[in-house]
Each structure stands twice: as C-alpha cells, then as structure tokens.
C-alpha cells in the first residue's frame, strides 16, 4: 500500500490529467486503487462523471471513518474507486485548523483505507497551505508535473524550501515533464539541463489534443484511446514510477 500525491503549486500543469490516467493504470496493473479528488474544482470527479454526494464536504472528510466510506463511488472501471471532491474543500484549511494535530489529520483519516486499497492517489489543489502540509505528511511520494519553463522551475524551488521548512526531505519528490511541446526550443533546453538531476523521471507527457479533449469524452485517455501517443506516454510514466516506489 502506498499513497501518491500529484502536486504542484502552479495550476494548469496537467495534474488532474496525470492523476486520472495514473489511477486508471494503477487499478489495471497493481490492484484496487482509490483516487481522492482534493481539488474543490472537482475536475477529476468530472472526468469520471461522478457528482459530489449531497451530504459531503470538507468537515465530513476530516471526520473520516464512515463519513468517507459512505461517499466513495465506484468508477466505470472495475478496481478503481474515487472519493469525489466537494466545493466546500475551498475552505478546508479553516476546518483543518480546528482539528487536533492539524498537520497530520489527513494521514490519520486515510489510515483505515489502507486495508481495502492497494494504492491511493491524491489529486491536489494548486497552492501551498495547511492542506498541502497534510498531503506531504500522508504521501509516500509526491509526484510533481512540471512544464519545462522558468516559472515552473521557480515553483519547484518553492516546493523544496517548503518541504525543508516542515522537516520533510526532498527525496519524496518525483518530477516529470508535462505538456511538453516538441517545437519549443526552450522546453528542450530546460529539460536537457534538468534530466540528470535526481528525482527527475525520464518519461515525458507531451502537450496533446487527446488529453485536452478528456473533458469532452470524460474518460481517462488511456482507457478511451489506448495506443495513442498520450496513452503510451502515461504508460511509460507509470512504469517508471512503479520502479521508484518503495515496495
């Protein structure tokens, strides 16, 4: 059992697309998987056509136990369940702040789920808050999609210094390049300069219309268009992550 958090401070870097596709691959290859949509926008939930349950929200999430169990939904794919997001997650830091041991609360409520699931994947909102701190404590691996641009690299530095601040090592972090455009010279140069650094994965997710259109066909691209360039890219990314994860 391991927990992977897909995270970046910056938005629009392909976090949700990665979460959805990797969760699908995990359920196919490694056994029962739970995808937790932590982003109040609920994009991952939208991709799986799952609406937020009526009586569910940030407070219920942090209570844990049956409040979580009752609100888990099966996706269209056997072996892959998800806990949909709720709009109230936008205020989750306030709710967290009221909890005891507020920076470890999320890890605590996820504990009972280790029994049922072989893997939990967290799709995280783009910011640096108390919730992020919770996520970093709970996760075995922080998977950070990065567009090879200067600003993205800056956000990575911010992530690393935050991790240092809360006493977590940067070795938990795995980085992969996302939304890469072949014809952009800067992308190629940025990637070349970083490829050799530890924690940087070799698999690359290209900028792809097939991924963008996921919002239209509302399925993981790996399930809808197996064999497409995008699907193959996610598969090799997943394969590489697999080899890096603690057993």
């Amino acid at each position, binding site marked *: 059992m391991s927990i992977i958090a897909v995270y970046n401070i910056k938005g629009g870097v392909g976090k949700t697309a990665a979460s959805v596709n990797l969760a699908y691959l995990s359920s196919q290859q490694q056994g029962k998987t739970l995808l937790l949509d932590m982003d109040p926008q609920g994009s991952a939930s939208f991709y*799986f*056509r*799952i*609406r937020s*349950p009526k009586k569910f929200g940030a407070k219920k999430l942090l209570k844990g136990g*049956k409040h979580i*169990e*009752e*609100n*888990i*939904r*099966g996706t*269209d794919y*056997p072996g892959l*369940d998800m806990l949909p997001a709720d709009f109230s997650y936008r205020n989750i830091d306030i709710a967290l702040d009221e909890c005891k041991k507020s920076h470890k609360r999320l890890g605590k409520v996820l504990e009972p789920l280790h029994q049922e699931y072989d893997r939990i994947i967290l799709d995280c909102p783009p910011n640096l808050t108390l919730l992020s701190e919770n996520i970093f404590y709970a996760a075995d691996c922080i998977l950070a999609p990065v567009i090879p641009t200067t600003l993205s690299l800056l956000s990575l530095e911010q992530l690393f210094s935050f991790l240092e601040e809360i006493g977590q090592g940067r070795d938990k972090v795995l980085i992969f390049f996302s939304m890469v455009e072949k014809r952009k010279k800067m992308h190629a140069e940025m990637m070349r300069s970083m490829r050799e650094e530890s924690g940087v994965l070799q698999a690359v997710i290209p900028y792809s219309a097939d991924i963008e259109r996921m919002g239209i066909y*509302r399925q993981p691209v790996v399930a809808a268009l197996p064999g497409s360039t995008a699907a193959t890219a996610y598969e090799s990314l997943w394969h590489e992550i697999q080899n890096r994860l603690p057993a």
Partner: protein
Amino acid sequence: MQQPGADTWYMPDGLQVDALLSALAAEFGLDIAPEYAATVVYTDTFDWRLYQQGYLLHCHGQSWTLYHGDSGEVTVQQGGPELATSCFARDFPPGQLRELLEPLLGVRCLLPLATVSLSGRQIRLLNRDEKTVARIVVETQQPAGKGPAFRLVRLFGIRGYDHEQARVRRLLEHNAVHETASPLIGFEEGCRTMGRRPLDYSSKFVLELDGAGTARQTMARIYLALLDNITRNIPGVLADWDSEFLHDLRVAIRRTRSGLSLVKKVLPEAVVNRFSREFGRLGTLTGPTRDLDVYLLNREEYLNRLPPALRPGLDGFFVELGRRRLVEQKKLVRALRSKKSRAVLAAWQRVLRSRDRQPAPLAAIPATELGRKIILKRCKRVLRDGQALDAATPDAVVHRLRIQCKKLRYALEFFSALYPRQEMQILLRQLKKLQDILGSFNDLSVQQEMLRLTLRELRAGSRRNLELAAALGGLMQSLYREQQELRTHFTEAFDQFSDPETTALFHELFRKKQEAA
C-alpha cells in the same frame, strides 16, 4: 461498507431479452456490449483443489480463465495447453497462471469436469451524466448433453449507487425476474451430468456416524465409505492421470486392512480372515508402482542432495525407473481389471450390506464402546513401545512403533465422529507430529535400502555405471546423515506426545466409565 456483490436470477420463460432491455431503457441510458458466445470446459483436480479455494478454472481451446466463484472476478486470463484428457500445472507456459496453479494443484492434474456453452451480453446502465451506475449481464448457460439451457440475469452494483441499484431491482421485479439462481448453475448441472458434485471427493477420511449405532452397523459404514473411496479412485489409476489416485487407493486399502486387524469379533471370523487376505493381496499388487512413483516424484530433491558434478550420474537411473514404472503400471492395470479383483470388491460390498447369518460376539455392542476399547488399547501400545525410543533404537524397532502409531491414527479417525470434536483434533494433532518424524525416518531408511539393492546389482566395468555408483553413494550418504539427524529428535517428539496433558485426555475420553455403568 462492502462492495455490493452480484445477484443472479432466472430469466422468466416468457420474457425476451429485448423486452427486458426496453423496460430498463425507460429509466436508464443503456450501453450494450456486443454478444459473446463460447463453449468452455470447467476443470479442477479430482479432489477439487481449486474449488476449495474459491476458484473456478475454465478453458476454451487454449485460452484459460481463472476466476473467483463468488464474485465472478477474473483473476488471470492466459494461454495454456489444450486440455484433452488431463494436464498438469507444469504443462502451462511460465507466467502468472502457472505460478498460481502450481502451489494449488501440487502433484494433481486437472481433469475436465463439465462442458458448458455460455452466451450473453453485458449492459451498462447509465445516469444522466452517462456514468455507469450498475451492470446487467444476461447470459444463457447450456451444459453439454440433453439438459435444459439456463437463462440468467445478473446484477452487478457499483459502490455508492445504492439508489440506482434499488431502482434496477424494482424494474426486474416488475418484469417477473425474482427467482434467484446460482450464477454457477451451468457448471453445477454440467458436473451432475458427468456424475460429479462440487467437493464430492476428499482424500481425508470424514464420516458422520450415528452415536447410537451398534458396532456392526458402524463398522459396515466405515468399510463402505472406504470401499467407495477405493472404487472411485480405480478409474484414475487405470487411466494413470496422476499419482494421487494410486496413493489414495492404497490408503483406503490400508485403512480397510487396518480395520480388519484392529476390530475383531464384530464381523464373523471367516469374513475377517477372507478379506484380510484379499485386501492384503490388493495392497501388495499396488505396491511396486507406488514405490516407483515416490522415487520419480522425488527426482528434484534427489538431484539437490548431490553436488553438481555427481548429478548427471542419476540421469540413467531415472530413465530406468521410468521404464520400470511403465512395466509395473501395466501389470497393475491388468491386476485391477481382472475378474478376481472386481469380484472381491463386489463380494465385500455384499457382505457389508447383508445381515450376518451368525453374528459375531461383539456385533451388537454400542459403537462408542467399541471405539473406546480399541482406541485405548492402541494408545496404551504406543505409550508402552514409545518409552523405549531413543537415539540408539534400531531401525526395525522404530518401524514397529511407526506401525503402532498408524494403527492408533486410523482407529482415532474411524471413530472420531463419535467423540467430542475439539478433543479429537488435539489428540490427532499430537499424534501426527510424532508420526511425521517416524514416517520421515522410515522413508529415509527404505530409500537407502533401495539404493543399496540397486548398487548391489550394478555391474562394474562401464563408465556410466561408475558415475551412477558415485551418485548413489552420494545419495546414500546424504540420506543417512539426515536420518541420523532425525534420531536426535525422537525423545523430544515422543515426550511431546506422551505429556501428562495428552495422556490424561486419552484416559478421560476412552477410559471405561465405571461410575456411569
């Protein structure tokens, strides 16, 4: 909250699939997968090793599917051998299926059990977001033969969509889909036409006994159960599917012989004498093939006992054993098929089922009394003979104690249903530990003797025989050392068996209860 499992119903005769689908379409979007159809052969070992673990395995040509019987969840789907009459785990190509099957099947082979034609369609039921909220499978299962086809409707719920599932159930109910069915009905009926029923055979001796029965009635039931075991294993021995048929056959014969020698004066003396002789003969004629089976099954273990340089010396040895086994197996088949053998088994059944003209002296005593006496007597013998056991006891004496233990074991197993279950299990467990060590010791002794005889008959002079002799020497050394090592555990094993708690339990259960009399 548990994942909702599948529910299965019979499709009413008057209901057409299309009618059911249009009823569902009134409330849900439907996504109908193309129709599937395949004739599959369900397979398992003779003693249901897969079914016992909740697995079902079927093949369709060379494509094999292993899945869980309850949930219907597929575990592995993979290519494999064509199943003509039987096949072993080792016949599968390396891969996940073989890895799963090897420990489950062990030395047993897979046999075809039931042939069933499956055809049907899977339908996803969708809500307004076109999200799947439940799955329906409409399937026809037609067992081979003249039997009827079974039309089934199965519902697979999806976690978190309980309301939708309830609506589906209501719709099914409205369409008269309410008679529940086993999702494995085709498999079960297919087995029935082949004369089988899941879990209808186990090599363990388990028998429900009537505590109020007489000694004669009870012994007849025990012998008939053993006879059933014998006759059911014979086809497998004749066809030589796997080595366990012969092994189980021999165990049933040995148990019968043990019964005849342990339990006197319950059947008429003439009957006991005659069938002791006859089952003795059956035991003897099944011996040589089994001995060779054991060596052949041990091949890997033998090779591992030798340094690599000596291993090739055994190649010819195993080829020769294989050749001898073919000869012995042929003899065995002839002997089992003979009129004489068949007549003996038929006569034994007649005797057990009919009334004795002159009942034996103890025929009418209560079965519990009979069991008590015999078990206590056997137990005393083991305790007495076991006292003398130590690291220096000669092989022959160890062998005798092993036989005593075996007799006690059989006696406990015969009558176990007549006494408290938990206590009997404790006694059997204690005894089994002692038996295991004595059994291993004896096996090592017998194997060394066999190797010694092989060595004696080996002619000097050829290079090949020289290498074989070296390998045999190496093996004997390894077996001898292991045997000596076991000796050092004798006292400890017997002390465990004869500890005050176990002996007290024996006495408590089987001592004559004078106060009650």
